[in-house]
């Protein structure tokens, strides 16, 4: 750390203060769907992805992303390989879906006016930093959700300049929709979780609520609307459970 601060910013952290900021390094969320309820719409992906849900929890703030990558990367890769070995040589694509995706991607180039994707990105960062940070309350979260939804409307009018080759503004215009959707999901989950747990600190609900400790939040998208429901936390398998010492009574989190 000493070397890094000296090298990058000419700050001697043994003599003066250093600036500390927050950064999202990984998102503790999984992707859940039930393949029996609908035909798989994503050839090659595997229902094993559901296992990601509920694996990490509020009290482990750092270092999880690497083990996630290794464990779930391997599982997803193995699942995809098994699928590919059995799959027909050519997967039939829905040409209407392909055309719609192409249209959506190219439309921002055709607009003669509209906001710059980077400007919307900065507004999203400011909104999430000020209203959906670690310390939250109901009022801020509701304002945050409204602000993100306004930005989503703005993002649909975004204008892109330049060519299609290596154009980061174009990529951002595409990524914005996902960023905005995830931001709204984060804010909505935070709003309904009326307790404080790990890095989720509700100033209006400062205590742990054991009932919330038994559930995951599940976000479902229906058109433009996001809905939050709860699903019971998966039970840890016995072979794993046996590796953990029982927690002393009254331990935090």
């Amino acid at each position, binding site marked *: 750390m000493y070397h890094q601060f000296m090298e990058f910013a000419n700050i001697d952290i043994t003599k003066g203060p250093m600036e500390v900021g927050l950064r999202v390094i990984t998102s503790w969320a999984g992707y859940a769907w039930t393949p029996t309820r609908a035909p798989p719409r994503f050839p090659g992906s595997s229902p094993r992805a559901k296992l990601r849900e509920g694996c990490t929890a509020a009290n482990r703030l750092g270092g999880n992303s690497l083990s996630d990558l290794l464990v779930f990367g391997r599982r997803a890769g193995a699942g995809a390989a098994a699928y590919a070995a059995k799959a027909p040589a050519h997967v039939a694509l829905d040409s209407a879906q392909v055309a719609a995706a192409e249209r959506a991607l190219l439309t921002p180039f055709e607009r003669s006016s509209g906001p710059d994707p980077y400007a919307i990105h900065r507004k999203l960062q400011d909104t999430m930093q000020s209203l959906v940070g670690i310390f939250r309350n109901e009022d801020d979260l509701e304002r945050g959700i409204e602000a993100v939804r306004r930005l989503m409307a703005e993002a649909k009018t975004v204008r892109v*300049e330049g060519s299609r080759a290596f154009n980061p503004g174009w990529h951002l215009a595409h990524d914005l929709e996902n960023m905005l959707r995830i931001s709204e999901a984060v804010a909505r989950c935070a709003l309904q979780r009326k307790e404080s747990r790990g890095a989720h600190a509700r100033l209006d609900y400062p205590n742990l609520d054991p009932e919330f400790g038994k559930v995951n939040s599940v976000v479902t998208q229906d058109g433009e609307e996001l809905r939050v429901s709860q699903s019971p936390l998966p039970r840890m398998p016995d072979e794993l459970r046996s590796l953990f010492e029982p927690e002393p009574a009254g331990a935090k989190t």
Partner: protein
Amino acid sequence: MPEAILHVYRGDASGGKLQEYRVPLEEGMVVLDAIHHIQGHQAPDLAVRWNCKAAKCGSCSAEVNGKPKLLCKTRWTRSRQASDRRPAR
């Protein structure tokens, strides 16, 4: 506010040229910060490869004033006021 003046090589397979940009100069700024400022405020189609911002991964290798550098650790104060920045060869 003091400005940094950069000459950034822009082009494609058919060729290219240096283009001048001015960005606000901030204390401790590195060349990658200046490039990102241009991207975010003046030229959203300006491509730059980068990843770790900690001089470990090498993605942001480029020529700064004719010398191979990592954009993320080349501090502005150590460079000349007007700076050429080209992709690494």
